[in-house]
């Protein structure tokens, strides 16, 4: 059995977390090295070293590109088992929170809620109420995705009450609150909340990606209110932030392109919108399994093909979106209800 080369594994983690074209130099052998190390540690039930290995890849697993790789998923679940075996509540709370994020990104919202709730509980038990609050907050995003907006709002109200007005993190619950407000058709109020959220996020440390995500939402909101040029400018600002982290936040980049494509569809610039959707799809289908974004891309394509009069493709894309949602355990009826209400209110496609 070969010995584990920790230096090489650290070097791999460093390469994978570098922005730019470095991923092009990563080979199957690199992933095999990680897989082999993990298998060896699991076979030997070497729990502390599994945690050590997982920590090496903490930054990578918190981002939006490589979390779909099978070896990364195996590493995450092995680390959770290791933390359980060691009885390390603090570590387990952290790992469950990260797992919740990844499940939510993929579209498995019910499982994500379980992970976040367990994480929040453990952080509470270990005397870290702030981290507990952050995980509790994350359940609001999942409830919203599952269509339970009332529960999502209750959680957000609770979270905002328990957060200091000058805390930069307050931007996150405010951002989600703006989505709920948008869902209700109150676009001007949603825009005000988002601008407030961005102000908070700008004050945070290393908050580029958060700001980029919020700018994307703001661009969508502004576009829905008919200020197209301003919206396009905001989309460009968001993409410019993301370009500084090339290859590290592919899902975020795809999300921004998807929303820009929505705007272009409204402007009847169908070819350009389809091109953007292809680019978005190419970004998330490399090393990630971000099904939750894939069905949205397919739904937007269905609308574009429908407007172009390409009926067959429109039906295929609608069927594709429904197929993926079904596989994620998401209600089709809820989607149709949202679709009708949001299109009627002019608040964009369901999110």
């Amino acid at each position, binding site marked *: 059995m070969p010995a584990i080369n920790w230096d090489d594994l650290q070097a791999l983690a460093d390469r994978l977390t570098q922005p730019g074209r470095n991923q*092009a130099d990563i*080979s*199957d052998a690199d992933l095999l090295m990680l897989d082999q190390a993990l*298998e060896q540690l699991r076979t030997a039930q070497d729990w502390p070293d599994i945690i050590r290995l997982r920590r090496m890849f903490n930054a990578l697993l918190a981002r939006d590109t490589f979390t779909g790789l099978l070896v990364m998923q195996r590493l995450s679940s092995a680390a959770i088992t290791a933390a359980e075996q060691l009885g390390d509540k603090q570590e387990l709370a952290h790992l469950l929170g990260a797992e919740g994020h990844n499940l939510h990104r993929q579209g498995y919202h019910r499982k994500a809620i379980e992970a976040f709730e367990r994480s929040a509980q453990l952080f509470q038990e270990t005397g870290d109420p702030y981290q507990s609050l952050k995980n509790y907050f994350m359940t609001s995003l999942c409830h919203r995705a599952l269509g339970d907006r009332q529960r999502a709002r209750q959680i957000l109200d609770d979270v905002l009450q328990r957060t200091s007005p000058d805390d930069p993190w307050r931007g996150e619950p405010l951002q989600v609150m703006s989505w709920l407000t948008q869902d209700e058709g109150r676009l001007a109020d949603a825009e005000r909340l988002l601008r407030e959220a961005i102000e908070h996020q700008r004050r945070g440390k290393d908050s580029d990606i958060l700001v980029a995500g919020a700018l994307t939402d703001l661009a969508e909101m502004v576009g829905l209110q008919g200020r197209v040029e301003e919206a396009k400018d905001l989309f460009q600002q968001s993409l410019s932030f993301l370009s500084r982290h090339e290859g590290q936040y592919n899902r975020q980049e795809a999300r921004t392109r998807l929303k820009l494509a929505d705007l272009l569809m409204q402007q009847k610039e169908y070819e350009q919108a389809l091109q953007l959707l292809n680019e978005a799809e190419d970004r998330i289908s490399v090393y990630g*399994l971000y099904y939750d974004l894939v069905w949205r891309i397919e739904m937007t394509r269905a609308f574009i093909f429908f407007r172009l*009069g390409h009926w067959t493709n429109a039906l295929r894309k609608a069927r594709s979106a429904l197929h993926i949602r079904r596989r994620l355990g998401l209600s089709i009826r809820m989607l149709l209800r949202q679709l009708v209400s949001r299109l009627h209110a002019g608040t964009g496609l369901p999110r």
Partner: protein
Amino acid sequence: MRKVRWRRVIRVLAALALVASVLALISDRTFAALATAIGALMVLISSFVGEQASQAESNHLGAPSPFYPNDCGDKGLDLGQRRLQMSLAFGTYFTGLLERDHCYVALKGQIAWPDASGQEILEPVESIFWSLDRSDGPQVFIIAAEGGMGKSTLAAKIVRCLVEKQAVDMILGDSAKTQQVNAVTGEINVLVPAYYDTTTFIERLCAQVSLPFDRNRDDARRMLTPIKDRLAGRRAVIVLDNLETVTDSDDLYRVVSELASRDRRVIITTRKATGLHVLERNKRIVHLRPLIRPDAVEDFLVWHIQQYQSEYFELRQLRQDIHHKTHLTRLIERTGGIPLLMQLVISDVARLSWDYVDRLPSLFGHELLDYLYRERWSELGACGADGELAQQLLRLIAREQYQGKKVTLERIGHWAQEHRRADQLSTAARLLIERFLVVNHDPVRGNFTVFPSLAEFLQKQH
């Protein structure tokens, strides 16, 4: 644009006429109302059918260019961030073929292409491109030939050309692996290519198009429709490389064929294609024939010497010889016209003499290939410490190539230093290069590879 608007106007008018005539038919039941309803319905249907046809036409693969020249696809692809995805699917050998410049040489009489009649003016490769360009052209290409004939090289050339001409925007597919690494021990296990199955292929494809798939729960065949739905509106080439056999009754072949369409071309490479004599219109087999024409062999050897003379200087001495018909005929007779065998033998001729060709045993195809590899392996064993190092180096390159690593000069240098054999490295490398056991595709940084048949041979050596 105007055409589309007119169609919409006609459609609206037809719909209104249909509604009015149905209402009239309910109240009066006259023949005129019935005729009007039928007429309006037909106009309505035909407006949709016409649009579907024009839509499909605008989507079809060859839209961007009316003609692909012979040198299309000569330039390697920059796979960028997708390199890992490609090498995970196809392995480093095929990925390398996609990336390298000028890895293909067109040879007279090598490609047996069934659509050639009427296109005699075109080279066979151009003829393949021409048929790909046509919306009614074949959708499934099966490239069939024995090992060493250049199946994967031709497949890579076609894929590169399609990408270069923006005729496809997605490369999907898989390669039937012949080796598998044990994740615990790191040992490489040999797999039989024939064991490659439909479920493995569908699993790979689902991952490539971001569709959830659980091989323990999902029926692979039922994923065909979701995959087609995912690919609707995009232009893809699906490559299935290195199959052992393809027959009409193969489940895998049928599944892959079902995926093919005007916007989704399928390329399969296989050693044997049997029972496919009655082919549907949308399928073609491209057989790679041995090189039996001396002029074709001459072209091939000129190309070979040009490609490899900078690393193996002795090849230059043969530049005059290869124009002698006697030599060419002898080479064809003894190698059966298989390109890889010719490359190995011509390297021996450069080291030894043309008499070597006559001393070859009466073996053909893979038996001769096996003989040549065995001979070389024994020779290296007899070369003392340098030969032993060359054997180790060969194993290193084969192993790392399988694992998807690019084997650079720097990597080999480090490896030799670790083994305290740096001073012997250049001699060992020369022993391999002059026997055509390794090929270096990047003279500056180094990019060493071995042929898949040699990798298989090395697996059997202890």
